[in-house]
Structures are given as C-alpha cells and as structure tokens.
C-alpha cells in the first residue's frame, strides 16, 4: 500500500516535467538493495515501470541478455503477472532481434502467454540451435502439433537438456503417436531424460498403454522393460512397488 502511494507520487512527478528515462527507472528497480532506503526506492521504481507498460517491458527486453540477472527476474515476473495483450506485441518484435540469445528469451517468454495464434512466428526458431529448446517448449505449451516432428528429432539427437525439453514438449502436445520416440528415451544415459520421457508416457495415458505393455515385455533393454512397467503402473493407477534385492523400498511421494 505504502509503496503504491509512493509510486503514485513518483508518477505524479512526471506531471509538468519529463518522466525519468526508463533505463534509470529499470536500474533502480533491479539494483541490489543495500539499504532500507534503496529497498523502498526499488519498490517505487517497480511500481512506476508497471505504470509505463509496455515501454518498460520493451526496455527490459533491450537488456534481457545483459549481465544483470535481476532484469531477467523482473521481466519473468511481469510475464507471469501482466496481461498477454500487453506483452505479446513486444515479444513478437524481439523474435527478429539480431542477438540469438535475445530471440531465445522472447520465444521462451511467449510460452507463458496464451497466444497460440503466433505459433507460425515461432516455428522458424526450431531451426536455430540457440532458440530450438525455447521454441519447442513454447510450441508444446500451445499444443501446436506441427512441432512434433522436431520434438522427436530433438529427443533422439539433441543434447541432454534439449532431450528433456523435447520429452516435455511431446507430453504437452499430447499426441500418442509420440509413444515410440518416448519409449526409446527410456533408455537414455541420464535419468533426467528417462524420467521426463516416462512422465510424458504416463500423461499420454491409456492410448499408449498397449505399446508400453509390449515394451515392458519385449524390449531388449532391461532398463526400458523396467521403466515401462513403472509407466504402466502409473497409467493403471496402481501403487508403485520397488524392491532392492530382497528388501522392500518405501516410496514417499510421486514417482515421476
């Protein structure tokens, strides 16, 4: 409340005078608060920036790939909080930015907005190494089915973090046709990918049941057979049971 009043006062100061440059306000909004006074200044600056949308968001995007982590943190807060129609036009502007890392963040932020009508603007970013992961995530959240092929390729050929993103994308797309690709990932070197793939299969649910059942019985890899059995348990709603040699293992919480 007090911060709001202060922000309103600061906003009023623009009346009859030039408003402060947005760079300066953004600086105050993201600087480390090394005194109680600075903390109050910071809150006031944040309130002012919200009043000056979408230009404030545009300014933040200008510095989004700089070294000031708090600019990214603040922009993320806005992405989660402010109306899509205020943010989306700005993010679309940055899809064509010269810096691939800035494009990546714009693509990533879009995935938190409910704006699937922009999917075709995002699709080309699947072709660039820097933006591919963000594009997969965003297109998955938007359930844009044409992204499935790229996701399956990334799950098969990408680096580890991209494989995780790809498994999550296939989960979000929700197409059971991705079952084979996901079951292959149950034998990934890293649990991060294996478990993301297993979770995706569980979310895909009954339609992938027969394929998973076959893998549980016939897969050449013992790990795939084991993981497939776990997936089936989850799909059927059975309580997971683990053994370590002859000892029962207690399961405390979610498997995936």
């Amino acid at each position: 409340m007090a911060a709001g009043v202060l922000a309103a006062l600061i906003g009023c100061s623009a009346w009859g005078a030039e408003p402060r440059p947005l760079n300066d306000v953004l600086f105050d909004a993201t600087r480390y608060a090394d005194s109680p006074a600075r903390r109050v200044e910071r809150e006031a600056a944040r309130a002012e920036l919200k009043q000056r949308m979408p230009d404030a968001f545009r300014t933040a995007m200008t510095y989004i790939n700089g070294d000031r982590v708090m600019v990214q943190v603040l922009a993320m807060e806005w992405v989660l909080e402010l109306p899509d129609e205020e943010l989306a036009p700005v993010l679309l502007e940055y899809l064509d930015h010269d810096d691939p890392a800035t494009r990546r963040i714009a693509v990533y932020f879009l995935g938190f907005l409910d704006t699937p009508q922009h999917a075709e603007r995002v699709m080309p970013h699947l072709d660039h190494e820097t933006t591919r992961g963000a594009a997969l995530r965003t297109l998955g959240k938007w359930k844009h089915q044409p992204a499935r092929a790229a996701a399956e390729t990334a799950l098969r050929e990408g680096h580890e973090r991209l494989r995780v993103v790809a498994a999550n994308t296939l989960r979000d797309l929700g197409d059971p046709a991705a079952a084979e690709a996901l079951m292959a990932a149950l034998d990934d070197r890293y649990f991060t990918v294996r478990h993301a793939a297993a979770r995706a299969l569980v979310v895909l649910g009954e339609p992938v049941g027969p394929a998973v059942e076959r893998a549980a019985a016939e897969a050449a890899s013992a790990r795939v057979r084991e993981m497939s059995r776990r997936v089936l348990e989850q799909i059927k709603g059975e309580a997971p049971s683990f053994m370590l040699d002859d000892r029962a293992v207690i399961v405390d919480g979610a498997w995936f």
Partner: protein
Amino acid sequence: MKARTISLLLISLAAGAVRAEGTSLAPLLPDAVRAHAETALSAWRMTPDDAGFAKDHGEPLWTLGWVTNVLNDPWLLPPMGDRIAATAQRDEPAAWWSLMAEHMELASAPSNQPESFANTPGIEEALALFTNRVAEADRLLTAAYAPIAPASRIAVAASVLAPMLDLENEPERREAFRRAGFTEEALAHVEAESRLLDMTEPSRAWLAEIGRIDYPHLLAAAALFQSAVDGLADWAAAWTNWPSEVQRRATPWGELVIGTTGDDRHERASLLILDPGGDDRYRDEAGAANGLVGASLAAIVDVGGNDTYTAEGLLAPGSALWGVAVVHDAAGDDRHDAEWIGVASAVFGSAWVDDRGGDDTYRAHVMSQGAATAGWALLRDQAGDDRYEVGAYGQGFSGVRGWGLLFDRGGHDVYLAGNRIQDFERDEPRFFSFAQGFSIGMRPHAGGGVAALVDLAGNDTYLGDIYAQGVSYYYAAGFLLDGAGNDRYDLHQYGQGCGIHLSLGLLADADGQDTYTGAILAQGAAHDYAVGMLFDHAGHDQYTADHHAQGRALNNAFALLVDRAGDDRYFGRDRQGTQGIGNEGGFRDYGSLALLVDLAGDDTYSGGFSNRAVTLRPLYGVVYDE
C-alpha cells in the same frame, strides 16, 4: 541376488574398517561408502553416471577446467577434498604451493626447497643472502606485472575493493583508499560503471586485463620470497647476537629493519622486519605489500613474544595488493586487528602468513584470514586456541582467479564471519559472510577460484550467516574440512556443503559429536545446476534446518549427505524440503538428484523415515539408512 547380498556384507565390513580409522578425514568417500551411495541410486534404477547429468550451462569466458569437470562428474569432488586434507596433514610449504598450482591450473609449482641459511656465519651474511633472493623475486614479480600499465593496476584493483568496502555509501572510507595509492578518478570510474544496466563490456575488459598477469611468474616470485623468509626465520631462531637498538638498512626494494629483543614498534613500510623477540607492535604499512605505492615485497619475521599487528589504513601487515607479503611469527599469543583489509589477503598478489604457536586472535572488516582475488593467500596457524573474526570475505575466501585458504592445525577455535555487511535485499536482520570456505565467480562472465578452511583438531565453533562453511557460487569450489573434535556449525543460508548456481560446495567432518544448524540451503544441498556434499565420518550428530537442507537438490542439482556412524538426529521443519529430496526444477520441469545416506546407528528423522530402510522421495531423492 546372493552375490549382491555378499557384496553388501563385504561392503559393511569394509565400512567398519573405515570407521575404525576414527579421525582420518581422507578419503572422504571411500569405495566402501561410495558403494552404499550406488546402492541407494540403484533403488531408483540409477547408476553413478546419472549424477553426471548436464550442469555446465553457463558460458563463462574464464573458469577453472577442473571445476567444470566436477560439475559434469560430481564423484570427482570428494577426491579434491582428499587432496586438500592430505596436503594439510603434510603441511609443508612445497606441498601447499603444489596444491595451489594444481588448483589454479598453473603449469607447475616451482621447486620450493627452504632456502638454507645454515652456512651463514652472521647477520650480515644472512641479510646478504636474503637480499640476493629478493633481487630474483623482484625480477620475477616485475615480469609478472609488466603487461599491466600502472594506471590499469589501480583501476582493476579499485573494481575489486571499492564495492567490497561500499565506497558509494561510505564516502569517508575513500581517504584510506587514496593513502593506499588509489586515485579519485579510478574510484569515480568504478562508481560510474556500477550505474550501468549492463556491465558486460567493462566486466570483460576487466577480465581481459587481469588475464594478462603472468601468473606462473607471480607464483615463482611468491614461492621464492616465501622460501627466503622461511630460511631466514630458521636462521634467526638460532641467532643470539641481536642489536640493542633497532637498525635500518636501505635496499633498492625497501628497508631492512632489525629489531631488538625488547618491545619494538614497527610502523613503516619495509622490505623486511626481522625481530628477535619481545612484545612487538606492527602497524599499517609494516608488513603490507602494496605495489601501488612502490612496496611490492614485504616480510616480517618475528621470533617470539606476544605481538600485535594492527592497521587503521586500507591494508594490514600480511596483506598484498599488487605485491607479495610474507609474515612468519614463531611464537606467542598474537593479535591481528585490522580496520579494513586484514592479514593473509591478496589482490593481484600473494600473501603467506605463518603463525607457529600461541592463542591468537584475528579480526578484520573484510578480506582477511586466507582471502584472495586474482592471486592467492594462505594463513597457517599451527597451534593454540584461536579466534578468527571477519565481517565478510575471509577465513578461506576467493573471488575470480583466487585461491584462499585458512589452515589451523589444532586447538579449540572459534570462527565468526558476518557481522558487518547487512543483507537488506533478502533478510534485513542477516549479514553476508562470504567466508569459511567460500568462493565466488563473476556471473555470467567468469568462474571463481578455490577457497578452503581446514581445521585438523579441537572442538571448534563455526558461526556464519549467509554464504559460509563449504559453499560456492558460479563455477567455483568451496571446502570446509574439520578433523577431530566436537564441532558446532551454525549459519542461516547457503552453506555447510552447498553449491549455488553451477558451483561446488563441500563440508567434511571426521570425528566428534557435531551439531549442524542452518535454515535454508544447508547440510549437503545444491541449487541450480550445482553440486553440494556433506560428509560426517563419526559421532552422534545433530542436523537442524528449516528447508532445502540435508541432502536436498533444488532445480537440477546434485546433493549428497553421508553420515557414516553414530546415532544421529535429523530435524527439518519443512518435510517436503528436507532429507533426501529433489524437486521439479521450476519452469525447467525436470528433476534433481539427492541422497541422504546414513550408514549406522539408531537415527531419528523428523520426516519419519525408518532405520535400516530405503525410502524413495520425489524428484528424485533417497533416504538410505543402514
């Protein structure tokens, strides 16, 4: 199955053998114990390889290669701790230099045989031999710094020290900087840069500039000078014909000062102060190496007495700024009291401080007691019940390209870090510590270095607040290793074997009934592509925390807590945030890996976990109790 049962039986027997060693710190993770961790992983159908999931997602322009390697293979972290413990056990200068060179990935450590003064018949000959070595050290040091222009030396040092001492908010401190050779222009420039929304350009320029220092030459100069001082100290211990009045001799590198057996006062910048005994007072520039004012080599050899080392200026005796400092204090209950930067600190230089005995006290505002950025600093305290106090950045601290180590061989010691710089950002009543085995990089541009606090014996107390006790931030490594004794570890946030943001933290305690108290991200915890480990080998221990603790991996990290023996108690307020548990990684939407492994005793878990049971916890953790 039978084979597995037999192998576990053998493992248990081997673990017993490990426990029988009692106070041995190393190996931190013997094969027999690691086998239990692997068994715990197998409950998830995972292998040790799984801990190597990708964490190297930063793109720093400079980092230590081995730190990145350990992020990629966390099982390599305990052997790094073993190496430090073994060096501490050996405790020879050559071994320390070798460890430092290895950690900092310098091509090779110089051979560091103690300079022999045995055949020098008198003080004149001893001093002649010493100055002969000084000439060579100075030549090496000049070569090390030659690529950096004098004005640039001031500028890059201002970038390190002005923020540490918060000159922007505390303008009265500027005078100390000016007296230490800093220009107003350089200080103003630092403040102007700090107003930039994006500091990428100046940060990269700073990195490039400090990368031009010839570190192998700096190391050679530092080791040679330390060896010469050590040799002279050995010679002085046997010499009896000391002058009755303080003598001074000019050299091209500063004064040689010969003290008396009485209580002397030394207050001037000198190349060497050689004092045979008495309760002496050393002040400010005495024993401080400051290349900005033409005093790049400084040493003190004090043979005995209860001495006082104080500083009201920026630098204290035993600190180095663009230079090399060595202090050798052979005996007595000494007091090191610095207004600002304290003993055993180095910025673009090297500081080596030996205190061979007595109950000593150390106090400084910042940067002290084994603290370095772009250089290295070692404080060796061989005996006594000592008290260490630093506001922040000390007791084993390093920044970019730094190696800071505090080694205390024995005694019941107290370490306090964190009573000067308040953390208004997060938690106003709290203070930053940045200490007790803490290293930090310059995110996102550069990794940090290596920092360690090693204490081999005694009932010790470690008090920190935010960032302390075996912790690091961004491509760096922080260690706290404690040998025998019943110890107390206390902090609020980030520590006790904790890695934060693509970094490595480790705490190991060999023996005793220990208590670990922390609130957040503590006790074998890691956050954001990091690795955190806590090893406690013996004793009935108590772990208390609020959340994100006790084998807690957060946001795609790897955490490990191994307690080998004793009836232990694990208390965590937030059941879903403590004791062998991962998380979903926030918007990243994938898991971490967390292990709490307790290998013996009747243990109590606030989470309700059972003894002699394996419990799988979410995303993805294990509580493994034997």
